[in-house]
């Protein structure tokens, strides 16, 4: 390319004060390949751009260098102007003679020489530039939501209400997640199930939502706009199409003493069960581990009593494939199980708190089930050991959270608030009872949150003791809590009837495995990482994947719902176009030279490099080469610098272009 135009901007006086722009223009005219050079006071202004467009037409320019400010400022402006003038926008480059020259040097001669050098480098570069066409990829307007808690439900409803198809995948037999387990929610004390269950019903009734419960993500292929998801539907042993949800099978099941996980093992359930009465879908599942039929084949009662004949012992796990364009990950959290020290983990257990050994030491979620009207006790707060009403309850905050020496340094965010709520719920049900709370700090930012916490102390008479608990042990039928009150500086010993530990929030088991399948990053605690902590808090660095809820970090319900709606908005933005257009700065493989070592595949952080088989006409495999999927490639160029045979080229930053720039030195 040899008809280059150079346009030098004065930027008012910003450039011309230290750089002799006329001299630079004159020098540019002498450069090889430069047909036209001029300078102008404000190149980015309308007359400046008109001048540029006119010059392109008049001098039949084939490339443009605009010597002005940083390309981060006006590259788009001038590339658009070039396009308007009929040039491919990628044949326009900017020479940064303001931020990198006139503003940082005060010697006019030196600055002018440097500006000339910069222009020269860019002229050589543009001579090697090639026309690039923006890449378009089609968008499948279907979204996958992983996780059917409040985050997943909110995102699914928002996207589906916008008219797009949604596939919601939930690991458990019912959607609802942790929110369905809660009794009442802070700071308004409205019943969790009352606000949650209608939403669950909305999901199952929504014509745009396909629900896969008791299912897990098996594998993920593809890229933004074009994901292919394999979902494993675990065998429910009940035909969902036939089951009417009458519940006779559950009544007749002779196995009745299986601890109910949903009630945190406080109550019992049969082997064929729904986790809780309001479950969605209301179709039972057979727990094959505990079912007599599956253990020794000697039962089959449920099949006999099932009117519609829905019970099917032969049912197998099933793999189904769904095509989607975007993914929202909303896998939620689990509570730090302090009963045992996790194997091979840096996180140390809390053996000294007796959780798991002393029946009357429970965690926060267990207390929620005790306090819940639909819980195993019908909302009556009793001790798990003897069923008596506890008159003294000790709540311990920050169990696991903010404990660097134990391996978790973050704050779990919701415990201060839910412990305050627990003291209130307790006081409302046991009027003559006394609640004590051991706390490090009370962290109550949020609308009406601090008022709520103060209410727990001032009106509901919870006693807050600032200090840590060192030991919890059984003494007769009491549980003794030893701790310190650092405000007074004394040791405290409380003989409690019940101890509730606010254990830390952790990501779900298997969060890391799922992240690897999705190709998204996670931190050392397995919380998923957002693309930018401030400006892109719901997007993953991997395009087309979004985050909602506690899988990204501890969150309360309002934050979770906000983030889920934000993720849904991001998905809808993506779905607002039929084709995705992106900058064509992507790597390309020269298949003639590629030796198929696939070193590029190993270094690609995006999984954009695939193996491609080259076959002859008979279909015999000749060799394997690398192929860069332009839809996935983000254009970092690491593959090119790694390639030993120099057969990958990053468009826009080719070896030829860089070498041409270096030749001017």
């Amino acid at each position, binding site marked *: 390319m040899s008809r280059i135009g150079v346009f030098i901007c004065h930027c008012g006086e910003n450039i011309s004060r230290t750089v002799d722009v006329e001299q630079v223009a004159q020098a540019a005219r002498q450069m090889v390949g430069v047909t036209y050079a001029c300078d102008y006071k404000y190149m980015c202004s309308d007359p400046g751009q008109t001048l540029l467009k006119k010059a392109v037409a008049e001098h039949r320019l084939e490339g443009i260098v605009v010597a002005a400010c*940083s390309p981060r400022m006006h590259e788009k402006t001038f590339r658009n102007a070039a396009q308007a003038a009929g040039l491919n926008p990628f044949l326009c480059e900017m020479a940064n003679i303001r931020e990198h020259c006139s503003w940082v*040097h005060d010697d006019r001669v030196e600055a002018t020489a440097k500006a000339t050098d910069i222009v020269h480098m860019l002229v050589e570069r543009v001579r090697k530039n090639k026309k690039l066409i923006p890449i378009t990829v089609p968008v499948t307007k279907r979204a996958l939501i992983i996780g059917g808690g409040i985050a997943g439900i909110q995102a699914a409803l928002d996207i589906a209400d916008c008219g797009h198809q949604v596939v919601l995948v939930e690991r458990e037999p019912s959607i609802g997640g942790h929110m369905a387990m809660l009794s009442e929610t802070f700071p308004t004390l409205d019943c969790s199930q009352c606000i949650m269950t209608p939403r669950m019903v909305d999901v199952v009734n929504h014509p745009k939502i396909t629900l896969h419960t008791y299912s897990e993500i098996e594998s993920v292929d593809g890229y933004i706009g074009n994901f292919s998801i394999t979902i494993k539907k675990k065998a429910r042993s009940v035909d969902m199409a036939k089951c009417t949800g009458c519940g006779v099978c559950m009544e007749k099941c002779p196995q009745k003493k299986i601890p109910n996980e949903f009630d945190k093992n406080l109550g019992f359930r049969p082997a064929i069960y729904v986790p809780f009465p309001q479950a969605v879908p209301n179709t039972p599942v057979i727990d094959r581990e505990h079912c007599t039929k599956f253990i020794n084949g000697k039962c089959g009662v449920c099949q006999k009593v099932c009117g519609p004949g829905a019970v099917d012992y032969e049912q197998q796990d099933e793999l189904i494939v769904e095509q989607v364009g975007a993914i929202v990950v909303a896998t939620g959290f689990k509570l730090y199980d302090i009963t045992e020290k996790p194997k091979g983990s840096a996180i140390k257990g809390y053996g000294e708190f007796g959780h798991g050994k002393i029946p009357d030491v429970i965690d926060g979620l267990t207390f929620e089930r005790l306090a819940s009207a639909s819980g195993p006790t019908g909302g009556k707060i009793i001790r798990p050991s003897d069923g008596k009403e506890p008159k003294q309850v000790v709540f311990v905050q920050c169990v696991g959270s903010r404990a660097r020496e134990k391996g978790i340094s973050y704050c779990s965010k919701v415990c201060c608030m839910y412990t305050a709520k627990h003291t209130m719920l307790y006081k409302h049900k046991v009027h003559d009872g006394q609640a004590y709370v051991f706390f490090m700090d009370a962290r109550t930012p949020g609308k009406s949150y601090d008022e709520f916490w103060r209410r727990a102390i001032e009106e509901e008479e919870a006693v807050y003791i600032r200090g840590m608990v060192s030991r919890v042990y059984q003494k007769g039928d009491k549980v003794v809590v030893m701790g310190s009150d650092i405000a007074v500086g004394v040791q405290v010993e409380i003989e409690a009837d019940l101890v509730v530990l606010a254990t830390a929030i952790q990501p779900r088991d298997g969060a890391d495995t799922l992240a690897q399948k999705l190709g998204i990053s996670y931190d050392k605690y397995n919380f998923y990482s957002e693309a930018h902590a401030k400006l892109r808090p719901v997007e993953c660095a991997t395009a087309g994947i979004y985050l909602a809820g506690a899988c990204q970090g501890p969150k309360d319900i309002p934050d979770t719902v906000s983030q889920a709606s934000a993720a849904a908005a991001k998905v809808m933005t993506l779905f607002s176009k039929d084709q995705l257009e992106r900058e064509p700065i992507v790597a390309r493989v020269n298949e003639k030279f590629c030796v198929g070592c696939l070193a590029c595949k190993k270094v690609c*952080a995006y999984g954009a490099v695939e193996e491609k088989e080259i076959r002859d006409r008979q279909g015999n495999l000749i060799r394997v080469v690398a192929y860069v999927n332009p839809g996935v490639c983000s254009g970092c160029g690491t593959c090119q610098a790694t390639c030993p045979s120099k057969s990958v080229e990053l468009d826009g930053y080719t070896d030829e272009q860089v*070498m041409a720039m270096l030749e001017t030195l």
Partner: protein
Amino acid sequence: MKHDFEPKIVAFVCTWCTYAGADLAGTSRMLYPSNVRVVKFPCTGRIDPVFILKAFQKGADGILVSGCHPGDCHYMAGNFHARRRFAVFRKLLEFIGVDLNRLEFSWVSAAEGGKWVEIVTELTEKIRSMGPLTQFTDLNDEEQWSGALSNPELKAVYDQV
């Protein structure tokens, strides 16, 4: 202040962090020596060691490679690949006889205009005190060797062969 020798410094930078950091130095009107020429890449991971050799060959006296801080890479891990690559490459440079002081690596984020100025100023001063790098330009001259054995040592070797 005028100096006898003005070194030529080439900076290979990534567009997201160091280039933006250098822009910030500009918008903050910080002053630094004009010896540096910036070559922009999408990521330090794109920087092929060959470019460094090429720059030295074409007369650069000092080279700066700078990108995002570890963990801040816009492309997730490009700067880690660069770091690993250049750790090996330095050995090669040392082997061929280039003073490693002429090659500097650093992390400059988009918020560190001041750090950019510091690094460029220090490197310029350092290279200025080291003098020009002549090994490559000498080699260039030798490539265009006329055939005359002006050097007696060379002649002795030639005769032996």
